[in-house]
């Protein structure tokens, strides 16, 4: 545990990728395979379910530190991280445990799950006393499931590749699904990760997906596209769907569905099982899982749909595109959310919120890895596969064409009404890369500008992590009446905490402290003086919010120091955006 805690400290202390890489290589070179197995799991985003209820952990920590609850709470508010707070408050100990990360996980921590409070109260504090402060903090983060350190999966992959001399893409391939909840990392799993390549590596794969290829944001004025990207004919252009990126893996007579987070989600979308007999073994499709407006039997025939998709190629006018997409019937993401995270799927939900897949890439065909075929070849073969599949549950994501970038920009204007996030530009000759790489070809995401309104900051709360003890999480409001209206009030409608520079955040923090009206626990209400331009991706009616409106992914675009509070936007302005 101490070695892993030291790795954490090294990773945490630097923002340099090279320094992090060096720390990872040092750690993996020295670690026992069983410990390394768990380290890979946590560093590449694995989260076991919470082992001890947070409430209980707080209570045990208060006891151990001999502090009243309010003082523990104040401390937590200042630190902004529960594991760190507890590690700072309980009496410090000499480090006495020589057990590695694997032993800690398997023998000490995992067995805690599900134990009654009195057993936990007996077992936890003696465990804490075996660890120094640094190790204790890391251990507590593992217990609360809040372990996070600035390392990407890509960096872990690179570290393992550097250490073993293997190709990073091979490591990435083996890592897929490693952090899935059903996996228990152990020495043999780690040894498989770092083993030299074997001849039958491909055959061993079972339901394993490929690492997803990710897009880069494109932030250029459209006038510069030609110069930077060349003509549109060199690109395959599609809508950027607002669904769940997913891979369909059909092998051994079975279908596996994987999310971009490399979680196996087959069970949550049972209706996709009907694709299994319609796809040949050795087929892997990358696409977007979306909610379909009609139950499949109510939709047009597959042939019609294919025709729709083909027609779209030649259409450039917005209205026509819109009309066709209307027939595609993609529903807003909010509906899909109703299905995410549900353990049991009622018949009603399956009926009301049916899903389909818009396929956009073919990664494996006839059991062969197709990722090194160019994009346009993969697309052509994908269309053939989808036609042969002949199920309305699987459609090709339509291609968009135009002679100029300006024409595409015009089509893109329809994004919002179509419920898409903009466009995807995929180089026609691009291979299918691994993660967010550019060496094998590139995918760009050309997103539309967010909605925006000018809103007033009315509550502030202290942040977490790097923002701990700073008032950095804000609640924003708009007016419920037009300027000049008598007794109009500010109605809260969104919370946001990202988008400001550190410098701006410090200034806002100081203003919050100066203009505080009341404190409710960690939250302060302030005299309204600050106006921000707030951006968000989506807007929908909501019964759960006082304003009657819910917005998606709100963040601060700009601090409107030029704008008086009275001139901030109104609820009516927000309702206009609902369309």
């Amino acid at each position, binding site marked *: 545990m101490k070695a892993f805690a030291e790795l954490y400290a090294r990773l945490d202390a*630097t923002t340099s990728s090279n320094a992090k890489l060096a720390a990872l290589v040092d750690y993996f070179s020295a670690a026992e395979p069983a410990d390394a197995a768990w380290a890979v799991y946590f560093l590449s985003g694995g989260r076991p379910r919470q082992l001890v209820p947070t409430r209980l952990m707080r209570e045990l920590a208060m006891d151990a530190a001999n502090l009243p609850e*309010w003082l523990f709470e104040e401390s937590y508010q200042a630190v902004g991280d529960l594991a760190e707070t507890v590690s700072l408050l309980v009496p410090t100990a000499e480090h006495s445990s020589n057990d590695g990360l694997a032993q800690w996980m398997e023998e000490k921590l995992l067995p805690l799950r599900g134990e009654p409070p009195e057993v936990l109260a007996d077992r936890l504090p003696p465990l804490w006393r075996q660890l120094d402060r640094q190790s204790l903090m890391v251990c507590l983060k593992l217990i609360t499931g809040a372990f996070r350190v600035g390392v990407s999966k890509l960096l872990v992959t690179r570290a393992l590749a550097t250490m073993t001399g293997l190709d990073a893409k091979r490591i990435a391939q083996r890592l897929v699904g490693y952090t899935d909840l059903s996996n228990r990392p152990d020495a043999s799993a780690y040894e498989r990760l770092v083993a030299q390549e074997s001849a039958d590596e491909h055959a061993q794969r079972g339901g394993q997906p490929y690492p997803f290829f990710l897009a880069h944001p494109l932030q250029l004025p459209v006038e510069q596209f030609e110069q930077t990207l060349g003509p549109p004919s060199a690109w395959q252009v599609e809508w950027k769907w607002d669904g769940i990126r997913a891979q369909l893996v059909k092998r051994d007579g079975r279908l596996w569905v994987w999310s971009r987070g490399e979680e196996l989600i087959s069970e949550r979308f049972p209706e996709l099982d009907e694709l299994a007999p319609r796809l040949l073994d050795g087929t892997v499709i990358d696409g977007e899982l979306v909610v379909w407006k009609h139950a499949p039997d109510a939709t047009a025939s597959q042939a019609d749909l294919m025709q729709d998709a083909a027609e779209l190629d030649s259409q450039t006018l917005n209205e026509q595109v819109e009309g066709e997409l209307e027939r595609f019937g993609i529903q807003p993401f909010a509906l899909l959310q109703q299905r995410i995270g549900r353990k049991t799927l009622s018949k009603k939900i399956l009926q009301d919120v049916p899903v389909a897949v818009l396929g956009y890439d073919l990664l494996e065909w006839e059991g062969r890895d197709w990722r090194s075929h160019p994009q346009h070849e993969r697309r052509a073969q994908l269309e053939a596969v989808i036609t042969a599949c002949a199920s309305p549950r699987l459609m090709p994501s339509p291609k968009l064409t135009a002679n100029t970038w300006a024409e595409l920009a015009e089509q893109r204007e329809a994004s919002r009404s179509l419920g898409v996030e903009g466009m995807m530009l995929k180089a026609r000759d691009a291979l299918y890369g691994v993660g967010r790489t550019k060496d094998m070809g590139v995918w760009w995401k050309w997103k539309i500008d967010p909605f925006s309104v000018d809103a007033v900051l009315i509550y502030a709360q202290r942040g977490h*992590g*790097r923002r701990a003890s700073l008032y950095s999480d804000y609640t924003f409001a708009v007016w419920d009446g037009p300027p000049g209206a008598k007794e109009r009030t500010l109605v809260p409608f969104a919370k946001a905490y990202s988008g400001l520079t550190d410098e701006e955040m410090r200034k806002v923090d100081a203003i919050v402290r100066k203009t505080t009206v009341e404190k409710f626990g960690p939250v302060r209400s302030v005299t309204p003086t600050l106006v921000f331009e707030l951006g968000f991706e989506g807007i929908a009616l909501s019964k759960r919010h006082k304003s009657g409106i819910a917005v998606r992914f709100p963040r601060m675009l700009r601090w409107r120091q030029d704008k008086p509070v009275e001139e901030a936007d109104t609820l009516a302005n927000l309702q206009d955006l609902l369309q």
Partner: protein
Amino acid sequence: MDLVIARPEGLYCPPGDFYIDPWRPVDRAVITHAHGDHARWGMKHYLAAAPGEGILRSRIGADMPLQTLPYGERIVHHGVTLSFHPAGHVLGSAQVRLEYEGEVWVASGDYKVEPDGTCAPFEPVRCHTFITESTFGLPIYTWQPQAEIFAGINEWWRANQAQGRASVLFSYAFGKAQRILHGIDDGIGPILVHGAVEPLNRVYREAGIRIPETHYAGDFKKNDPMLREALIVAPPSAGGSTWMRRFGDYSDAFASGWMMLRGTRRRRGVDRGFVLSDHADWPGLLWAIEQTGAERVMVTHGSVAILVRYLREQGLDAQGFTTEYGDEEEADLVKEGASV
């Protein structure tokens, strides 16, 4: 009778008709120590502890109207007996003991309980009412012994040296910088300082405090090989300035009590944070308060509300004093303001 009350000009002693560390110009000011938020310009008469004279004159003016008094020596003014006692914060820092008609008050200014060799160690003074600071008034703040911190700084410096990188350590120029220079292992390599630090080193040396040989960093050219072995002590304001360019590839660190928290450390954006403070930690505050035997405690700048509530729960008569003292050392770091 209250010997000290809060007035718009500062903490005021009514029977003695003088202020302690006032923030507006007044006729008579008693100064606890020379940090800028406690010792301000413009008073008609200053009274301070004798060991602080050099620093005060170098910061406020050589010809300032300053009267000094050795630690422990008493004077009487309008019937109030006044004396200074070491506060262990920086060179010349003092607690002010006031006695009037049998009533004893002590105003601590800023203090630290662990002795550090650069100033007279904190000395508890028995009193009826104790005015305490509360900069680090939360139980999350507990300092490691400074020997361990210095071992960490030495190790960091050596590791950078081995990689041929300069070691830039940010610390407040008065007090903290000299404490680091005093505690560091100067056998490791050359020590360079920023122009804001050197004049204070001189005052410390004149006061007989051992400060190792230091060089003015501005005298070195970019790429001078000596820089790659050196420790550079600079105020936080130098960070990110063009002054830093001369060091090429360097590792930076920040020495402050605020470095206790991972969030502050990361926000600071330096490679390392060393938890070294000139203020008392939570156990230090509680120990100091207990040592005074005071039944009444007035809490100033820092976590006022928290410390007041905690002391009341321990059965003491505690209340907050609103002041305009900050924490000059880490003024650019975020913390609870004095109004809390």
